[in-house]
């Protein structure tokens, strides 16, 4: 099993996270997927639109996260900085089983472990 799958597996142990995927923020290439990742197919494109439009609107600094919310789920996309092109950690979060603050905190912690 690859190191990335192990790290994504750890993220999935968090209460309420049903699926996680690690994408390249520039090329959209998927480096690893686990669980229900149907929501993360266009995450790269969505993050790119958010990044570009926010910059046009005068926002400074780099994108940190994009959260898309439906009645039952959050689709959380965290940008993970590294040497070279950034990554996107996408997760499907069940709204009934956790709240967004906890999910974000846990995902940020797992994002740090991914590259080790």
């Amino acid at each position, binding site marked *: *099993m*690859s*190191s*990335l*799958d192990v*790290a994504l597996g750890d993220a999935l142990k968090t209460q309420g996270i049903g699926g996680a995927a*690690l994408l*390249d923020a*520039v*090329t*959209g*290439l998927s*480096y690893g997927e686990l669980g229900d990742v149907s929501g993360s197919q266009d995450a790269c494109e969505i993050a790119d639109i958010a*990044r570009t439009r926010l*910059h046009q609107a005068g926002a400074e600094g*780099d994108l940190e996260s994009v959260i898309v919310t439906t009645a039952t789920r959050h689709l959380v996309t965290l940008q993970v900085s*590294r*040497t*070279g*092109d950034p*990554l996107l950690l996408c997760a499907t979060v069940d709204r009934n089983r956790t709240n967004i603050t906890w999910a974000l905190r846990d995902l940020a912690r797992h994002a740090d*472990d*991914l*590259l*080790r």
Partner: protein
Amino acid sequence: MIDESTEPGTGSRNIPALLAELRSRKQSRTVRLTGSPGGTLHLRDGLVVAMETPAAPNVESLLLKSGRITEEAWSAVCAADTTHDRLAEELVAQELVGGGELEIISLSALFDAAFALSLSRPDGWEVTDPVPVLYRNPGITPERLVAEISRRTELLADRPGSVAEFARTRMQLAAPAQLPGAVGALPARLQDVLTNTDGRRTPRDIAFALGRGLFAVMLDLRRLLALGLVQSSAPVAPQRPSTATRTPSAPVPAPPAAVPLPRRLPGRNTPAPTGTPSETP
């Protein structure tokens, strides 16, 4: 039981068919592509674990050029593993790069080389016994490779001209007067691409200079092209002198007959018919 009696790949029509055949036989092989640019495909148990081609940076280039590890550290790792069979394990064991990070670099180099190789048709190929190569990933199925290559080609298809042509077009900065202001608001990544755009470098050259993937650089260049910050240089290949048969040029028009010279009329300031700038008071 693997049937070793016939050498695989001899009857395959193209590379995807060859990879599918090697996959069904679960073979560990190295496939050498001849032609320009040519390349090498590494398979383990039927899955593709690495691809290398002069048309895109390999794992070593990505590690060194991006400044992730130094030349000295790399030489030390190569010296510690003279067979180059365990380079990935050495790199991680010496804590030069994280296991997850190396897996990401290994996968990105693999898909990038696959994309670069898809831009030209190989002259032929040769299937040999596996040779050591630096990789760290569980292996990719031929179907996933083909799907990703199609996705990438489609993403770049909105530009006029073929993707292959774009990959070898020299890029230059647009008129300098347009640059300030617009550049400052760009992410650092795009600014780095601009810094390396000098009118001589192709997207491939910029990718090598930055230690980034060819496809990633092409996506960034596409955005810079859309912003009007870069443009393609004049055609690289010198134009072949025209060998078209000379047609007699149009006969010299006879001097116009007695047409009087244009005269300036007082109170009117129409531009001269020859296109010379009008004299405004």
